[in-house]
C-alpha cells in the first residue's frame, strides 16, 4: 500500500512537471523558436497597445532575454515558491503560486483565479453529485431490467442526453424554468455562497441539472454495461447461492465491482470540469474559471490564459491522484498486488 501511494505521488509530481514544461514551452519557448523576438513575446504579456517602455519593463521582469533553462527555472520557482519581479528600482513580490499579473486588471493572476474558482467548484461538484447518483441509479435499474420498456426508454433518453449540446439544453431550460415559469432566476444571477447562500443555490439549480444531464447519460450507459458484465460473474452466483437477498447481491457484490471503471472516468471528468465548465458557465452567465478562460483568450490576456491552463491541468492531476488512491481502497488487488 505504502509503495503504491509513493509510486502514485511520484507519478503525479512527474505529471505536474510535464504540465509546467508544456505550458512553459507553449507560452515562452515556441514563440521564440517560431522566430519571434523577445520584444514581441513581451508585447503579448503587456496588453493591446504596448508602449516601448512597457515592453522593455516586461522583458526585464520576465527575464525574457535569459537562457531558456534559467527562464524555466524562474517560472517553476514562481509557481512553487513565489517570485520577485524586479521592475526598475522597485521589486514586486508575487507570492506562490505566482502566475504573473493580468495586464487588464494589473491584479496578480492568482487573485483572480481564487476569486473565480468557487463558482466553478460549486457548479462542478454539485453537478457531479447529481450525475453520479442519477446516472448510476438509472444504469443499475436498466441493467437489472434489461430489455424492458424502462431500459429502452432510459437508454434512449441517455443517448439524447449525450448528443444534445449544453447550450441547447441550457437555453431551453432557462427559457422554460426561468423566463416562462419563473421558478428559478435567469442567467447571470450567481452569487457566492458566502455572500448569499439562498441565491447561490437558486442560481445553480438549472446549471447543475443541465450539466448533470449530459454526464448522467454517459454514466448511466457506463454503469449499465458494467453491471450487465458483473452480474454474469461467478462470484455473483456464489453470493446468490449463499442465500443473500437480491438487494445485497446487487449493491454490495455487483455494483461495488462495477464502480472501478466508473471512478476512472469520473476522475477525468471532474478534474477537467474543475478547471472551468466553459459552455455551462457561458450559457448561464456564471463567473467561473471557464468564462475567465474565454474572456482572457478574447482579450489576449496571456498571463491569465496561462494561469487557467495551469489550474485545469493541476486539478486533473490532483483529482486523478485521489482516484488512484481511492482505487486502492476499493480494490485490494491494487493495494496488495
Amino acid at each position, binding site marked *: 500500500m505504502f509503495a503504491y501511494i509513493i509510486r502514485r505521488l511520484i507519478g503525479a509530481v512527474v505529471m505536474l512537471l510535464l504540465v509546467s514544461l508544456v505550458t512553459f514551452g507553449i507560452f515562452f519557448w515556441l514563440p521564440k523558436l517560431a522566430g519571434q523576438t523577445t520584444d514581441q513575446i513581451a508585447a503579448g504579456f503587456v496588453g493591446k497597445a504596448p508602449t516601448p517602455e512597457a515592453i522593455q519593463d516586461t522583458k526585464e521582469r520576465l527575464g525574457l532575454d535569459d537562457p531558456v533553462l534559467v527562464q524555466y527555472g524562474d517560472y517553476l520557482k514562481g509557481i512553487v515558491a513565489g517570485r520577485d519581479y524586479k521592475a526598475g528600482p522597485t521589486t514586486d513580490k508575487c507570492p506562490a503560486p505566482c502566475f504573473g499579473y493580468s495586464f487588464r486588471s494589473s491584479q496578480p493572476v492568482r487573485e483572480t483565479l481564487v476569486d473565480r474558482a468557487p463558482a466553478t467548484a460549486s457548479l462542478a461538484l454539485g453537478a457531479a453529485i447529481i450525475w453520479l447518483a442519477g446516472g448510476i441509479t438509472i444504469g443499475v435499474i436498466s441493467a437489472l431490467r434489461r430489455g424492458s420498456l424502462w431500459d429502452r426508454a432510459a437508454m434512449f433518453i441517455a443517448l439524447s442526453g449525450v448528443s444534445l449540446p449544453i447550450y441547447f439544453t441550457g437555453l431551453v431550460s432557462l427559457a422554460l424554468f426561468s423566463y416562462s415559469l419563473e421558478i428559478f432566476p435567469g442567467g447571470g444571477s450567481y452569487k457566492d455562497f458566502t455572500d448569499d447562500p439562498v441565491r447561490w443555490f437558486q442560481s445553480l439549480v438549472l446549471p447543475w441539472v443541465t450539466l448533470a444531464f449530459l454526464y448522467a447519460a454517459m454514466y448511466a450507459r457506463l454503469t449499465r454495461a458494467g453491471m450487465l458484465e458483473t452480474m454474469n*460473474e*461467478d*462470484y455473483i*452466483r*456464489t*453470493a*446468490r*447461492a*449463499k*442465500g*443473500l*437477498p*437480491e438487494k445485497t447481491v446487487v449493491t454490495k*457484490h455487483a455494483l*461495488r*465491482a462495477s464502480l472501478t471503471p466508473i471512478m476512472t472516468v469520473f476522475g477525468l471528468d471532474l478534474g477537467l470540469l474543475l478547471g472551468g465548465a466553459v459552455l455551462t458557465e457561458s450559457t448561464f452567465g456564471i463567473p467561473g474559471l471557464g468564462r475567465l478562460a474565454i474572456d482572457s483568450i478574447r482579450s489576449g490576456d496571456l498571463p491569465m490564459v496561462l494561469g487557467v491552463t495551469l489550474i485545469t491541468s493541476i486539478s486533473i492531476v490532483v483529482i486523478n491522484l485521489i482516484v488512484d488512491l481511492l482505487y486502492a481502497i*476499493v*480494490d*485490494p*488487488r491494487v493495494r*496488495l*498486488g
Partner: protein
Amino acid sequence: MTGTAPAAGKAGTGEAPAAFLEVRDLKIHFPTDDGLVKSVDGLSFELERGRTLGIVGESGSGKSVTSLGVLGLHNKRNANVSGEIWLNGKELVGASQTEVRRLRGREMAMIFQDPLSSMHPFYTVGHQIIEAYRVHNDVSKQVARKHAIDMLGKVGIPKPDKRVDDYPHQFSGGMRQRAMIAMALSCDPELLIADEPTTALDVTVQAQILDLIRDLQQEFNSAVIMITHDLGVVAELADDILVMYAGRCVEYASVDNAFHQPLHPYTWGLLGSMPRLDRERSERLLPIVGSPPSLINVPSGCAFHPRCPYADLNDGKSTTERPELIELEPGHKAACHLPLDKRREIWTDEIRPKL
C-alpha cells in the same frame, strides 16, 4: 448397497416423498434465438441424508444446469423450469423466490468449480464466510468471525485466525477451494452439491479436497451430490451413480453395479474412456466415437443412437422410440432397448475384457 432410485410412476404426483431429496421429471429449457435448448429434459432421482450421489456425463450433458436448478439459481426470465424438487418435504420449483432463497446456504449449499472466480475479489475470505453465516444466523460480527475462523481451521487452512483477513487472491488454488468449502458448510447444510470441485486443482490437492469433503460429510451427515466427469472421483466418493446423457438419466446404479455390471452402452463408453493407471496407455482408452448431441435438435428415439455401436440390433426402435428408464434389478435402472440378456452378454464378452 441399496439403490435409491425413485419407484416408477411416482413422478408428477405432487405428493411429498419420504426421501430427503427427490427430483421428479425435472425439465430445464432455455429459449434462445437458435431454438429451445433442452439442457435437462425429464430427470428424476432421490437422495438420502448421509449418502453421496455421483452425477457423471460428458461436457454439456446438463450436470451444472441440474445442480443450479436444484438451488433455484436459474433466472426465470431465460429458463423454463418444470417438474418437482422436494427437499425435506418442501417443494421448490413452485415455491417463491424468497422461500427458496432462505433455504439456499442454510439447507442446501454448493461448491463451485473455479474457486478464484467464484469468490468476490474485493472482500476478504473471512468477510465472505461471515456474510454467508450471518444471512441465516442472527449473531454478532464477533461470533460470526469466530465461527469463520473455526470453519477455516476445520477445512485445513493453517493459521486460520490470520488467514481469515486475507483476500482470495492471496490464497493458493487449493486453499481457495477449501475456503469455498468452509463457506458452503458454514451453516451446516443438509444438502451439499459439489460441481466439479477439484478440476481446477492438481492431483495431490484434488485427493486432499475429496478426503475433506468425505470427512465433513461424515461429520455433518449431509447428503452430497458430486458432479464430475471423472469416474475415479465417483468410484472413491459416491454410493450411487447417475449417468446423464443429453439432459436425461440413462443409467442409475450403485457404484459397485455401475463399475462391475453396467447396463447401458453409454456407461460402457464412459468406462472405456476412463484412464487407468495400471494399464498401458494404448490399451486403456476406448473413447466414445462422435460428439455430444445438440440439445436443440436432440436425436430421435434414443438420443445416444448416432454414437451407439448397438443401435442396429433393435429393429429400428433405437431411432424411433425413446427407451424408458426401467428398473432392471433392485436399485439399478437403465434406459436402453437392448434385451437385458444381450446387454449382459455384450458386457461380459466384449467390453469387460478390454477395460
